[in-house]
């Protein structure tokens, strides 16, 4: 087990720079999730750590070693791929044993290790099967087993759940989290699904266009997003962002002036007002804004309502038992502490 560090990591393909000097410290035993839209460089970062791509500049440290020029097998890592990547011509047991081939342990020890891993992953009875006889979830378990068997310092997961159906994904998510609590290795997990990131991570790394946007615990990233991108990316449905202006009089939202409150000291200018759908409530007395309900999405316990306001479309959550009718005009309010302000030009949070 070891900590992992990225120091000013840069990756270029020909003339195109896809990773722009990324730095990050991952503690020993930490579960870190890289999340971002496709093309943001999260998978590239993972492949650099794995040694499947060459580092253009900067350094990757595992433990106290710089591993830039080490072969993947010398880095003490293991990776679980999106499409499982299990060897189709080998039985489950041989798949798991393949990584132990070069280890110096005795045959008995290797066998014991395979049985132990199979036991942890609850697949002892699958050991003699061929991959074609396994379901998607079982295949993913084999892929995880193959990574576990060598007991690497760092586990790398490259979107391992995206090929599973929704129910299985939720279940595997939980299993991987439990597994981490049990074995305690450092894990770097890449996903484009912010729900996966929120539920599994000790710390989330939000990426976009080859830059790290924010690093923080799920709570930090959710409650105090560093910029408007993180604000919109984390949390479903997305945070509403509305154009507003901060001036000496206060916060102007479509002609209505509100008290500037905690932003009174912030520089004046155009801003984006952010408010999460579940922080909005129906308020006919002192509404923040008013609009007409254009669409409803019932989710059972709650119903998402799409409200057309003069600032654009706003999503809010309403009670699932008695949501407002489509076509009704309603007022929406929010507590001031639930509001976020971002600079309109740079998107940086003003909190």
């Amino acid at each position, binding site marked *: 087990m070891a900590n992992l560090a990225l120091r000013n990591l840069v990756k270029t393909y020909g003339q195109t720079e896809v990773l722009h000097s990324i730095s990050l410290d991952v503690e020993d035993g930490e579960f870190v999730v890289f999340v971002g839209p496709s093309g943001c460089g999260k998978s590239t970062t993972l492949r650099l750590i794995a040694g*499947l791509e060459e580092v253009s500049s900067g350094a990757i440290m595992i433990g106290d070693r710089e591993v830039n020029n080490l072969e*993947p*097998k010398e880095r003490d890592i293991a*990776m679980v791929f*999106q499409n499982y*990547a299990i*060897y*189709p011509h080998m039985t489950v047991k041989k798949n798991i044993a*393949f990584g132990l*081939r070069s280890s110096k342990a005795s045959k008995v020890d290797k066998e014991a290790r395979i049985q132990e891993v199979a036991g942890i992953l609850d697949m002892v009875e699958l050991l003699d099967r061929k991959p074609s006889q396994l379901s998607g979830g079982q295949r993913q378990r084999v892929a995880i087993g193959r990574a576990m068997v060598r007991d690497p310092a760092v586990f790398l997961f490259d979107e391992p759940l995206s090929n599973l159906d929704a129910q299985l994904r939720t279940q595997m998510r939980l299993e991987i989290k439990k597994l981490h609590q049990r074995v305690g290795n450092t894990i770097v997990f890449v996903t484009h699904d912010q729900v996966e990131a929120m539920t599994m991570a000790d710390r989330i790394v939000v990426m976009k266009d080859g830059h790290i946007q924010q690093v923080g615990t799920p709570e930090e990233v959710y409650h105090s997003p560093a910029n408007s991108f993180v604000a919109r990316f984390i949390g479903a449905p997305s945070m509403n962002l509305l154009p507003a202006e901060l001036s000496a009089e206060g916060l102007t939202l479509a002609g209505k002036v509100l008290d500037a409150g905690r932003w009174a000291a912030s520089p004046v200018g155009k801003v984006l007002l952010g408010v999460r759908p579940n922080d909005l409530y129906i308020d006919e007395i002192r509404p923040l804004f008013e609009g007409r309900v254009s669409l409803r999405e019932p989710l059972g316990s709650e119903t998402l309502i799409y409200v057309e306001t003069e600032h654009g479309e706003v999503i809010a959550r309403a009670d699932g038992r008695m949501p407002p009718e489509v076509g009704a005009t309603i007022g929406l309010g929010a507590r001031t502490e639930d509001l976020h302000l971002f600079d309109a030009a740079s998107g940086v949070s003003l909190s």
Partner: protein
Amino acid sequence: MLAQLISAFDIMILGVFGCVAYYYLSNLALDTLWPAHGKRAAHNINRTTAIRPWLFLFPALLLLTVYLVYPVIFSIWLSLHDRSGEVFIGFDNYRWMANDAKFRESFGNNLLWLVVVPAASTAFGLLAAALTDRIRWGNIAKSLIFMPMAISFIGASVIWKFVYDFRAEGQEQIGLLNAIVIGLGFEPQSWITTGFWNSFFLMAILVWIQTGFAMVILSAALRGISEETIEAAVLDGANPLQIFWRIKVPQIWGSIAVVWTTITITVLKVFDIVLAMTNGQWGSQVLANLMFDWMFRGNDFGRASTVALVIMAMVTPIMIWNIRNAKRDL
């Protein structure tokens, strides 16, 4: 001349429209006999769907029968008759065959061809596919290796005749192989008249042709392997050789088998190369050329048919296995 052209054109028109008319009219007749309406519509539709495929398959089945099934049966019949095909002589031809030195030589050579050519072609093809996959000028190399596929066996033999050419002492040697041999300081050899080993020089020609075929199929198969399994093997600490033998080759085993058997069938039919290079002299005879000899030089229908049946008996099991394999791959 013009009359010939016109009659050829007439026959083409007749053929095309004859086919169209057959399909159209037979289909019409079927629909009139069991119309898809009225009281028994459902029953009629069931009946026509059962018959229609046979109606459409009939011309193909007829041609297959006339040109494949009938010749096989006639060959069996001929093999039981004498050279003229008129006097029944029982199994005399088979008895002759079992004791004929030239047949034994041919059979032995065919077995040798059967082992060497598919093995060598597949091995070289796999090697070429693996090596050309990762280099920038791989595609040019591939086209060059594939090119002999486009040359007829006779054409290839003519080319290789120059490679193996040998001139009597005192004359200047023009053969490529002898040039190399002389260059290395050895005596020039008469390659294709030296018993036993000459077969291998003939096999080299077929290997040269078939390697391209093997390479193309295996190259496609190699590209079909998921990149992730290879990356996983890299992370598992396998070196390139281990990745090739333990991860890649097992995954394309099906394609290797298909390539191997397809070449095997070509080998069993090998005829042109032997005819053009040695005509079966100097101990290089093969079955197909032996059959040709008895048929058109010896004018013995009985013996030629007997040899032909031996070739068929050798090809059939491989053919069946190959078709089954191909079906499974589809």
